[in-house]
C-alpha cells in the first residue's frame, strides 16, 4: 500500500512494461555511397540509374503516401510526382542529408499538398481530446478517473475495427501533425530527420508529435467508452 499525493492509501498500479516501447525497425538503407552514385547518374539523365532507384523505392514511397493520404489513386499520383521530381530536380540533391531523408521530404510535400486541398471540416479541435487537470494539478476528476484501458486494446490489436477508428482519428489530425506521427511512430524515423523532411526544428517535431499522440489517445479512450482525459 502507498499513500498518494491526495493522502489516500492506494494499491499500486504497475507501469506497463519497460520504460520505452520496442522501436519499429528503422528503414533499411542501401549503402549511402551507392545511392549517391545513382543520384549522380540520374543528374546526367541516366535512365537505368533512375529505374534502379524507382524499383528500390517505389513501394516505400507508396506506403508512406498511403499512410498520409489514405486513397490509392492519390497515393499513385504522389509516387508519380515524387519520382518525376527526383528526375527533374536531382541536381538539387547536394548529399548533405541522407537520400532517404530527401525522399521523405519529397513524399511528404506531395502528400501534404493533396491533404491541404481537402475540406478542412475533417479536422477537429484537439482540445476536446487532450488531458485536463484540476486547479491543484491533479488529473481532472476524483482519484481513479483516468482509466487504464490499455489491456482492452491488447485483445483488439489486430482487429479491423480498432484500426478503422485509429485511421479515422489520424485523418482528423492537421496534415503536418499526421505526417510527424506516421514518420515517427509508423516508420521509426528519428526526430532530426523528420525535422529535415518537414522543415521543422526538433523541438517543434516533439511538440507536434506529443500533442498528436495525446489527441489519438483521447480518441481511442472515447472509442472504449471512457473519458478522453
Amino acid at each position, binding site marked *: 500500500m*502507498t499513500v*498518494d*499525493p491526495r493522502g489516500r492509501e*492506494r494499491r*499500486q*498500479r*504497475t*507501469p*506497463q*512494461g519497460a*520504460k*520505452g*516501447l520496442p522501436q*519499429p525497425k528503422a528503414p533499411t538503407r542501401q549503402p549511402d555511397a551507392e545511392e549517391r552514385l545513382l543520384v549522380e547518374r540520374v543528374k546526367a*539523365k541516366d*535512365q537505368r540509374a*533512375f*529505374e534502379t532507384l*524507382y524499383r528500390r523505392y*517505389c*513501394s516505400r514511397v*507508396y*506506403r508512406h503516401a*498511403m499512410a498520409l493520404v489514405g486513397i490509392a489513386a492519390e497515393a*499513385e499520383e504522389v*509516387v*508519380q510526382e515524387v*519520382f*518525376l521530381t527526383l*528526375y527533374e530536380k536531382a541536381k538539387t540533391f547536394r548529399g548533405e542529408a541522407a537520400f532517404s531523408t530527401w525522399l521523405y521530404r519529397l513524399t511528404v510535400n506531395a502528400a501534404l499538398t493533396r491533404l491541404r486541398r481537402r475540406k478542412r471540416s475533417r479536422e477537429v479541435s484537439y482540445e476536446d481530446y487532450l*488531458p485536463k*487537470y484540476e486547479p491543484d*494539478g*491533479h*488529473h481532472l476528476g476524483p*482519484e*481513479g*478517473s*483516468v*482509466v*487504464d*484501458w*490499455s489491456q482492452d*486494446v491488447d485483445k483488439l*490489436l*489486430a482487429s479491423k475495427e480498432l*484500426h478503422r477508428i*485509429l*485511421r479515422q482519428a489520424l485523418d482528423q489530425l492537421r496534415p503536418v501533425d499526421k505526417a510527424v*506521427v506516421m514518420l515517427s*511512430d*509508423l516508420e521509426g524515423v528519428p526526430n532530426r530527420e523528420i525535422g529535415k523532411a518537414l522543415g521543422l526544428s526538433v523541438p517543434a517535431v*516533439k511538440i507536434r*508529435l*506529443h500533442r498528436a*499522440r*495525446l489527441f*489519438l*489517445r483521447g480518441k*481511442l479512450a472515447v472509442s472504449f467508452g471512457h473519458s478522453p482525459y
Partner: protein
Amino acid sequence: MAKRSIVGRADSAICREIADLLLDYMTGELDPETVAAFQEHLRLCPDCVAFLNTYKKTIQTTRSLRFEDIPAEMEKRVRRFLRERTQKDHLGR
C-alpha cells in the same frame, strides 16, 4: 540535460508536468534526477500510471497499422508513365 521542475516534488500534484515529460521520458532524454522524480511520482499516482500505460498503448496501436506495398499493376503503370515522361524529356534535349 537541464533540470526539470518536478525534482523534489514527486509527492505533489505534478500530473500535468508528468504528462508533458512523457515523450522525453520514453526516449531517455531526461536527466537522472528528473527520471527518479518521475518514477517516484508514478509510484504514488495511479492516475499517472494509467495515463502512461494508455499513452504507450496508443503508440503501439499506431505501429500496428499496416499499409500495403505498391500493387504490381500500379508499379508497372507508374513505371510506364515515368519512362514516357523522362524519355520525352531526354529526346527533347
